[in-house]
């Protein structure tokens, strides 16, 4: 009995150890790591068997388009997107329209939501089995392109089915470029802006902000709207909700202070991440939280630091963020929404968040893929995108009245002041500069007495050491 039991235990233990080492080598079985299915068959002395399972975190939706029945000659294109739910509707509408006009092509939409999107794409690209047309977010462009995953589009743009690239809104083509060549066309984008709740402004008789405002105006407005309503010593209404340790969003503050986080050649953090301009930005940001106390304390330190509920629940007068929650805010009864450009610091600046489509380098039908891509994010597709967001084609946005729209206008006007994001300068931003900046922001947010100059010097040195190791 004893021997048998020992064997059983050892067996179970070995199986589980094996399972987890096996999980790390995904060459032959590309299981996404978050889909953790643990099945433990535990045999105890009483020989009771307990089976415990089940964690499926991500869902994979594949929307099949009808297969060609008799016409074997049709070209089938696959389109990969990270959008999900209702976000898939415009894709499907455009695809249906395109197929009507191009009877020789069938388009299949493959939607993978959640964090696994890139992982799945990478394994698909590695296996040569990726979709023909792929959607990518801004900071993933250098990685995918430098590994040879995408076709440069310039030959197509000037080829048999030419595309006039001047139709796009200013700045929206740049994130799709790598080392001078165009690899992606824009699908959607968002600079930053400030949302404000007119209800709170009206209640306290504060004038709505205007596009020409500065950091001083921003601070003054926020201070006027930070209120302890019931006199219990606790703030009830906050001036401005900010995004804690969200590093890419923080790049706006650095740019507006006239600084940058990395040298344009991508070789140095020292002299940039610890420059007087960057330090000024961090100091002001930290002061908004700790000294002036106009920003509600962070509710989380996650990726987007999006856990603060104050603005949505009508407890914060302003929020500096991207366009993503706008639809929800417009229908939120706590909020009478207004938008305005981000305030200018020493310079007027903004940063862009962006998603676009490119053509997989292993596509068997690159020309058909281009025909679809041109339609998808060109003037025709934009007629449908405009129903769901701001289309990247300027004329379509204009004819839809978005450039002059009191809500949408701020997002388009912000495009005139774009500063390049740090990931453009180095392929290694994500593992060198970003974690160092994140640690620095967390440090000053956690410890109000932290010496910002020293914190940024440490961050610059950490980032530089990590970068030097990569460049060695």
């Amino acid at each position: 009995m004893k021997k048998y039991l020992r064997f059983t235990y050892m067996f179970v233990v070995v199986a589980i150890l094996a399972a987890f080492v096996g999980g790390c080598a995904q060459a032959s079985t590309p299981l996404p790591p978050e889909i953790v299915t643990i099945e433990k068959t535990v045999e105890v002395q009483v020989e009771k068997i307990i089976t415990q399972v089940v964690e499926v975190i991500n869902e994979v939706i594949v929307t099949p388009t009808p297969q060609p029945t008799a016409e074997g000659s049709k070209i089938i294109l696959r389109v990969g997107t990270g959008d999900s739910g209702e976000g898939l509707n415009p894709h499907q509408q455009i695809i249906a329209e395109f197929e009507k006009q191009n009877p020789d092509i069938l388009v299949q939409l493959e939607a993978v939501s959640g964090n696994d999107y890139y992982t799945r794409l990478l394994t698909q690209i590695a296996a040569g089995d990726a979709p023909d047309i792929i959607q990518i977010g801004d900071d993933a462009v250098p990685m995918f392109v430098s590994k040879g995953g995408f076709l440069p589009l310039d030959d197509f743009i000037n080829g048999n089915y030419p595309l006039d690239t001047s139709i796009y809104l200013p700045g929206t083509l740049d994130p799709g470029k790598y080392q001078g060549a165009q690899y992606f066309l824009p699908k959607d984008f968002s600079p930053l802006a400030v949302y404000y709740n007119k209800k709170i402004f009206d209640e306290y008789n504060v004038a709505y902000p205007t596009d020409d405002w500065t950091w001083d105006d921003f601070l003054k407005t926020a201070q006027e709207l930070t209120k302890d309503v019931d006199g219990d010593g606790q703030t009830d209404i906050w001036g401005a909700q900010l995004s804690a340790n969200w590093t890419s969003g923080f790049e706006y503050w650095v740019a507006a202070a006239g600084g940058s986080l990395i040298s344009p050649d991508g070789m140095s953090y020292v002299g940039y991440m610890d420059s007087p301009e960057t330090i000024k930005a961090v100091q002001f940001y930290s002061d908004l939280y700790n000294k002036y106390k106009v920003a509600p304390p962070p509710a989380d330190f996650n990726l987007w630091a999006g856990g603060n509920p104050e603005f949505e629940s009508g407890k914060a007068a302003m929020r500096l963020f991207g366009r993503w929650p706008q639809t929800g805010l417009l229908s939120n009864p706590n909020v009478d929404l207004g938008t305005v450009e981000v305030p200018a610091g020493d310079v007027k600046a903004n940063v862009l968040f962006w998603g676009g489509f490119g053509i997989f380098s292993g596509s068997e039908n690159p020309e058909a893929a281009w025909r679809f891509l041109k339609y998808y994010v060109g003037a025709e597709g934009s007629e449908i995108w405009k129903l769901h967001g701001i289309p990247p084609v300027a004329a379509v946005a204009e004819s839809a009245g978005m450039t002059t729209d009191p809500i949408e206008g701020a997002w388009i006007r912000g495009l005139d002041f774009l500063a390049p994001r740090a990931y453009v300068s180095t392929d290694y931003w994500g593992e060198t500069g970003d974690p160092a900046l994140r640690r620095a922001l967390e440090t000053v947010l956690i410890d109000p007495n932290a010496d910002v100059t020293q914190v940024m010097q440490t961050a610059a040195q950490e980032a530089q050491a990590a970068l030097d190791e990569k460049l060695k």
Partner: protein
Amino acid sequence: MNSTSIKTSLRIPRLNLRQREAILFYLCISPWLIGFVLFYLGPIIASFYFSLTEWDLLTSPQFVGMDNYVRLFTRDALALKSFKVTLVYTLVYVPLDMIFGLSLALLLNQKLRGIGVFRTVYYLPSVLSGVAYVVMWMWMFNPQYGLINTLLKYAGIQGPRWLLDPKWALSALIIMSLWGVGRSMIIFLAGLQDIPTVLYEVAEIDGANRWNKFWKVTLPLLTPSLLFNLIFGIILTFQTFTNAFVATNGGPLDSTLFYVLYLYRKAFEHLQMGYASAMAWVLFLIVLACTLVIFLTSGKWVFYRSIGE
């Protein structure tokens, strides 16, 4: 006559009982065996090879020898930090899990009406999907509006900032994980039910009180369950991922950067599959060593009750 000759020519070699049983045995376990070789053993061997290379998934692996291991031990401060975080978590969580699991099992081993309901209630959290309960706990730990700090406020205590405070974040994750104590509880409960009542009756006749009975009868006979929970607990906690990934993403200031979370980042965010494979192998060897040490010493403290004793 004809049939006899066919019979002779096609005669299957006569197998003895032992051989036939062996064939049946391998036939029966073959689905598992094939799965193991294809989906575990293959990737395990592959991961060892990859641990000796630099590989970004997209371009072919470059052989670099032991460089990944050297880097892990000499040039990566974060890896060391993540190992420390994981070790602290294991050393604190595993004993707490055993104590709470055993206490609950003892409570739920009573013969009461409706005890099944309580057993279900306490076991349920460990069946729930990891992400769902982590998100719920994140709300409970919210410093301004969360349930925990609101209750503490009623008691006149200013609660900490939990997941946002590097000093408290790991503790918050431990408290969060203890909600899943039902996993070890159910094994203890099974162990408790297997202890024959006759032993307690004998102990009572010998004048033992409840305390004696627990220390002299219950605990020794539960040692196999203890061993199992100990080893299982260590393996599981060394692999902690979901809680930290969802609740803190390793922060604040890397205070909850678990080893496997760091491994995941290296593999799937920085695309260093070779380095990540090396990390996995180091962790594997550490866990294997821990397990072996526990096994080798278990003969001294684990008692098995043989059948018919």
